[in-house]
């Protein structure tokens, strides 16, 4: 009996050690993604704590079950012990289960604010001293300054509007992009996630918390990326037949490069506006003629 218990204990500790020292490839099968943003990293460590506790319970329960099935299988001369229960034991494991959950709830509460509330931008981030960076909305970092991007989900593409750079109060001419969101590194980015049609869900695994884009509501989330690179993701809430193809990508670049990209984007949008304007004029000049030609000339 004692020997068996020792074996079980040894097995459990080996399993735990394996979890902690697991190589990267193996770890990715057991833990969520991280490395993009503080929120994702916090979630990762919270998940790991839960995983270890769950693994201990798992080994305990399944071990006890298998032990019973092996040790107490019917054999000649074995009499089942006719007991109806044990108040002490039952109160014991009820309290035990409750204590584990209290511990988990406490850890969650300790981490919840760090995951939900944005931190200030880093010193190497975008210079947020301008008045356009003062955040509105419920989610804001301690110093109240962040890059704010409106994320708009629609069947089946994501649009990103860089509201800090709105040239006029009505929002006309604000730079935007589709599919690829370019952000500066080391900068707190706050997302206001909305939807134009059905429910979508914004999820970039490496950046952490996913939020639903619910028509009529605004969901908020944030991230701060320290490493330049591409962070892929996709819509994770069923939004129709094109749901699978509603992919997204966040590209983090150094602040200087971000500003160049922004200027270029504004230029492209302006150019497109001018082209459209020219098209319209041509269209009204040739009213009534064959439309096919206009398309060609535009």
């Amino acid at each position, binding site marked *: 009996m004692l020997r068996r218990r020792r074996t079980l204990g040894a097995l459990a500790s080996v399993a735990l050690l394996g979890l902690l020292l697991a190589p990267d*490839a193996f770890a*990715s*099968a*057991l833990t*969520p993604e991280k490395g993009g943003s503080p*929120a*994702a990293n*916090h*979630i990762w460590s*919270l*998940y790991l704590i*839960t*995983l270890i506790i*769950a693994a201990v319970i*798992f080994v305990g*329960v*399944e071990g006890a*079950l298998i032990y*019973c*099935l092996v040790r*107490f*299988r*019917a054999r000649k001369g*074995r*009499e*089942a012990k006719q*007991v*109806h229960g*044990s108040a002490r*034991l*039952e109160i014991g*494991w*009820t309290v035990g*289960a*409750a204590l584990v*959950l209290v511990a*988990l*709830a406490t850890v*969650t509460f300790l981490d*919840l604010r760090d*995951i939900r509330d944005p931190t200030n931008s880093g010193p190497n981030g975008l210079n947020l001293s301008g008045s356009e960076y003062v955040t509105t909305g419920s989610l804001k970092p301690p110093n109240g300054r962040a890059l704010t991007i409106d994320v708009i989900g629609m069947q089946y593409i994501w649009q990103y509007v860089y509201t800090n750079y709105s040239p006029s109060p009505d929002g006309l001419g604000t730079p935007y992009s589709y599919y690829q969101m370019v952000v500066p590194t080391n900068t707190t980015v706050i997302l206001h996630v909305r939807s134009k*049609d*059905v*429910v979508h*869900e914004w*999820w970039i695994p490496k950046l*952490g*918390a996913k939020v*639903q884009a*619910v028509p*009529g*509501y605004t969901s908020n989330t944030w991230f701060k990326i320290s490493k330049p690179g591409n962070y892929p993701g*996709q819509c*994770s809430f*069923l*939004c*129709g*037949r094109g*749901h*699978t193809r509603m992919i997204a990508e966040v590209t983090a670049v150094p602040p200087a490069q971000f500003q160049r990209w922004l200027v270029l984007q504004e230029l492209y949008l302006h150019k497109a506006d001018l082209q459209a304007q020219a098209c319209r004029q041509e269209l009204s000049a040739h009213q009534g003629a064959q439309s096919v030609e206009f398309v060609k000339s535009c």
Partner: protein
Amino acid sequence: MATVALSPAPQIVARRVEPAPRGIMSWITTTDHKRIGILYLVTSFAFFILGGTEALMIRLQLGEANNTLVSPEVYNQLFTMHGTTMVFLFIVPMLAGFGNYFVPLMIGSRDMAFPRLNALSYWLFLAGGIVLYSSVFWSPPEAGWISTVPLAESTYLPSGGVDAWIYLVHLTGLSSLLGSINFYVTVAKMRAPGLSWSRLPLFVWSILAYSLLLIIAIPVIAGAVTMLLLDRHFGTHFFSTANGGSVLLWQNLFWFFGHPEVYILILPAFGIISEVLPVFARKPIFGYKAIAASTIMISFLGLLVWVHHMFTTPTPLVVLIFAMISSFLIAVPTGIKIFNWIGTLWQGSIEFRTPLMFATGMVGLFTIGGLSGIFLAMIPVDWQLSDTYFVVAHIHFVFVGGSTMGIFAGIYYWFPKITGRMLSERLGKWSFWFMFVGILVTFMIQHSLGLDGMPRRVYEYANVGNLQLYNQISTVGSWILAFGVLLTIINVWRSLHHGTVAGPDPWKANTLEWFTTSPPPINNFDEIPRVRSLEPMKDIRREIERRSREGSGARERTPAEIKVRA
């Protein structure tokens, strides 16, 4: 010598034998709870096969990265039909079937309280199934089993599939509502003499909790789908934002039903396990009162946790925290059950018959589903895991590892009572091992899929990382699981005609359904025994043995008479 001559198996004396009604009309017009139970069991198993086939097609499509076996449209229809079928047309009615057949027998009653209402319940359920599956010939629903709005509004899905889904919910909902009232009244009013609440079999307790939850949850979903129907066809705007409706209203209403539904699907399976384990461990159930109380606790708490399906919605944090705490609380009574089941096996004399294997397999697999549920109950962790394959893995460990394994335990345990013949143990054990391994292979790896970034309800994925490998493992597992189910179907088919004759009490079980013949006569019991403990059949067997030891005299009396006079 008398002990040799007199089998301790209980028996009854029939004073007047009426030939059982035959023919298809007798099945259509029946109000006998046993026949209705069989109708429920057979029909819902047929739907199980349909839903399972859809699952296999889903797994085939995902068996390869960038696969084009089915179109996105068909894929969305497949998972919608699969989920809807398994929830509304397999697990709920299957458990209703067991309840119909065995609740009256277990409480020593001759039928349900309202036999005709009972028949109506079955036919409403069948109508719901036919309505949903008729849509296959036109355009099946494709908004998921949760019919998420506004996708399910007529703007986005104008075809009739969603309407078929709405009528399915209405018809099966009404069926469940009537059935639940029937169960409740039957248990409250028609128990055998001496069968107090504290001697009620645990399966009956679980059916009682199932009924109470259905009575509370069904009206809410009925109202919600009616609003959706009005939105779709009569110009109302309950759920359309542009006109002042609210999408979150639908999510709240749906999950107010949807989460209790999870417990509706699992509690009676818990009940079956609580019946099977003590019989084959040859021990009384460990902590009867704690298990019964935890059933009621789970039902109550189950009504408070629906917002944990909405952690990623723009809902105030304080509401999310409430849902997290109540979800944590539910783990306590669930843990109590698992510990008590292990306590039941502890120091028993465990006979490895098929029902026991399915029951212990259920305990082992459900534990995994319970533990993964803790991750999803933690708000920030759920922010990462919600709507990914991690959730798919979790619900399948609960519904396949939990409910379905419990249902199979019930099939192997009660088949002898229903048909009078035993199922083959050899085939049954093979079936168990294939299903058990199949479930582990199919669903365990899906946790990793979710952790690696694969959302649920997608018809294809790119070949990055280990996604294709994991999906292939899962697809192989699904066929192992399907083969296991097929073995049980073959087993049932063969044993119906060639199985060993079971006799009234082949397992030496504890509850009253084993007191009567297998299959039971139309009136169940000629004489209803008086119940003196939690395990009336043990008392009866003991009494027979005592009398037969005392010598002659006992031979002329039936066990029923002995019990009544004792």
